[in-house]
């Protein structure tokens, strides 16, 4: 058996396995989990599942900007809040339904992100981090203090749950399926973005932005795009949250939430999308599992974050192993095609 045949066999094996993992995940999210939830049939479990899914989306969107593009973002929760407030205000003031507010929340959050990114995007490293912190806090202050518009600390009651073209989806199982569908689609979109040439360009900015600039990568523009896209997905998550809980207040979007999302990405492994998802699940489900410990839940978040930085600097599923996993299991895009079969590797990820 010569080299090219070996490659071809390995490739076929890869292809066969490549269908397995996404299928398993889809089965888990759309069949096994709902079955379990319906079996227990307790509102609390549904709530945890939905919360975990929303934070998976938040963590995945943070992964795009902090993990892939390497911009330390300390104000992510504010864009989540912008999305949630857009959905809540559109529903309560204009009576619009979920099908309209979902994309609009994303777009408004993206627009706000674009506007604040215009002046701040040329800052680097710690200065950028602090600028995003300031922006996040400013948005939070607006939510808290613009009482006429946002009802301030009293929060807003969202009267309409999920619905699709007039069909109400506000039952427990239907809510779960709506959240799961939106989150899954968004995560797939983020995965396609971060595992592509586009994602590679972002990674080159993270590694050395001056070098990337010199090589012809339009760093400022790409950074802005990543920042805006991540805010879009955070806004989508905010809309899900608003329609799911039916009540939002500024306390849901303060600085500590940004830190929680950051901790998820860091614990999972910066630059690794499966890691970000695992981190989100860990940091949402672990405190819930430890509910008996009561007050120690928040301290666990800090401890998990500290220990993972100290002992697993690459995170639970580091970027390199995550990329290998993604490459083998999930994507067909960068499998070698007929043309370059003999060369062994494809030319990378398209």
């Amino acid at each position: 058996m010569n080299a090219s045949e070996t490659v071809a066999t390995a490739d076929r094996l890869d292809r066969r396995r490549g269908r397995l993992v996404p299928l398993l995940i889809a089965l888990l999210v759309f069949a096994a989990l709902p079955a379990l939830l319906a079996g227990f049939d307790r509102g609390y479990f549904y709530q945890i599942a939905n919360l975990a899914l929303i934070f998976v989306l938040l963590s995945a969107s943070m992964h795009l900007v902090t993990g892939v593009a390497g911009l330390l973002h300390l104000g992510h929760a504010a864009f989540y809040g912008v999305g949630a407030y857009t959905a809540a205000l559109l529903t309560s003031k204009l009576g619009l339904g979920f099908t309209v507010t979902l994309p609009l929340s994303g777009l408004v959050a993206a627009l706000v992100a674009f506007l604040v990114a215009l002046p701040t995007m040329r800052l680097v490293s710690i200065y950028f981090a602090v600028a995003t912190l300031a922006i996040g806090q400013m948005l939070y202050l607006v939510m808290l203090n613009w009482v006429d518009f946002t009802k301030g600390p009293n929060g807003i009651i969202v009267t309409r749950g999920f619905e699709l073209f007039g069909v109400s989806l506000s039952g427990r199982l239907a809510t779960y399926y709506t959240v799961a569908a939106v989150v899954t689609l968004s995560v797939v979109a983020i995965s396609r973005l971060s595992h592509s040439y586009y994602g590679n360009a972002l990674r080159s900015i993270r590694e050395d932005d001056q070098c990337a600039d010199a090589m012809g990568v339009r760093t400022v523009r790409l950074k802005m795009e990543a920042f805006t896209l991540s805010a879009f997905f955070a806004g989508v998550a905010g809309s899900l949250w608003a329609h799911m809980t039916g009540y939002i207040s500024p306390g849901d979007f303060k600085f500590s939430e940004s830190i929680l999302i950051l901790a998820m990405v860091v614990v999972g492994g910066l630059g690794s999308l499966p890691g970000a998802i695992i981190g989100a699940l860990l940091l949402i489900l672990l405190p819930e599992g430890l509910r008996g410990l009561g007050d120690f839940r928040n301290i666990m978040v800090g401890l998990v974050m500290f220990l993972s930085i100290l002992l697993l600097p690459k995170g639970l599923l580091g970027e390199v192993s995550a990329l290998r996993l993604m490459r083998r299991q999930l994507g067909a895009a960068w499998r070698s095609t007929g043309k370059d079969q003999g060369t062994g590797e494809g030319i990378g990820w398209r």
Partner: protein
Amino acid sequence: MFDPYYLQQLAIGLSLGMTYALMAIGFTLIFGVLNVVNFAHGEIYTLGAFAGLVLISATAPPIVAVILGALAVGALAGFSLERLAFKPFRRFTDEASLKSRAMRESTLLSSLAVSIVVREALEIVFGSQMRSVPFDYLINTPVRVGPVILVTGDFIIFGVAAAMLIGLQYLLTRTRVGLAIRAVSNNPLGAKYVGIDTDRTIITTFVVGSMMGAAAGILMGLYYGAVFPAMGFTPGIKAFVAMVMGGLSSIPGAVICALILGISESMATTFVSSGWSDMVAYGFLILTLIFFPNGLFGARRERV
């Protein structure tokens, strides 16, 4: 223009600025001068305040002993913070990794994680509500100076801040320890090659800076009469803003900018409701980063 009301607002702003300056001095020493990204300084401040409160409620010592106790706790906290959150990440000695972004960001995240743990631990031990300081220890007896009213605490804070500022400037520019600190911040590896004990220098800086943070915490506790686990967050942000505005490495610059910040905030509250006054600091931060990336008083930096 010279309405007594505005003079009073100015005085309030100056004393507010002084409280920010008190915090900013220690912060700038660690963050700006030593060039170590430290997000746990606010928790040192809180620890100092709680140490003072515990001392007061346990033994009711004279106020000087309270401050000395807070200083001791601050020194210990600074030492442990450096050992826990910073030392483990300095495991390489080559220049590239010492200056690498990955290391700086990992210490940023580790200090952030430590600060979460400390704050939550304090909440578990002391509860998250404000705890009031016994009345005898408060330093807010009103003093009338011409048309405006100040409190004794303003003078104490002014004195302490001035002493810290002058002491630190002397330490940094006139002593061997200060020389070592500046050498390490400039080039850690070079400092090591010429025989400076970099580890010890970094620890010294952390201890001195954290003592100042703890002193600021207890003074603020006595000044406002309330101590609570989340009290370090806002002053920490304000100190950070003052430091960035002042140009990172300049301690006098940070103090001047803290005063500017305090005055602007107190003036802003005459026009808008006090809930918005925090906006001033964040606005200043963004404006400084955009228009004066080197800070108002700082030396040139390569990239911001």
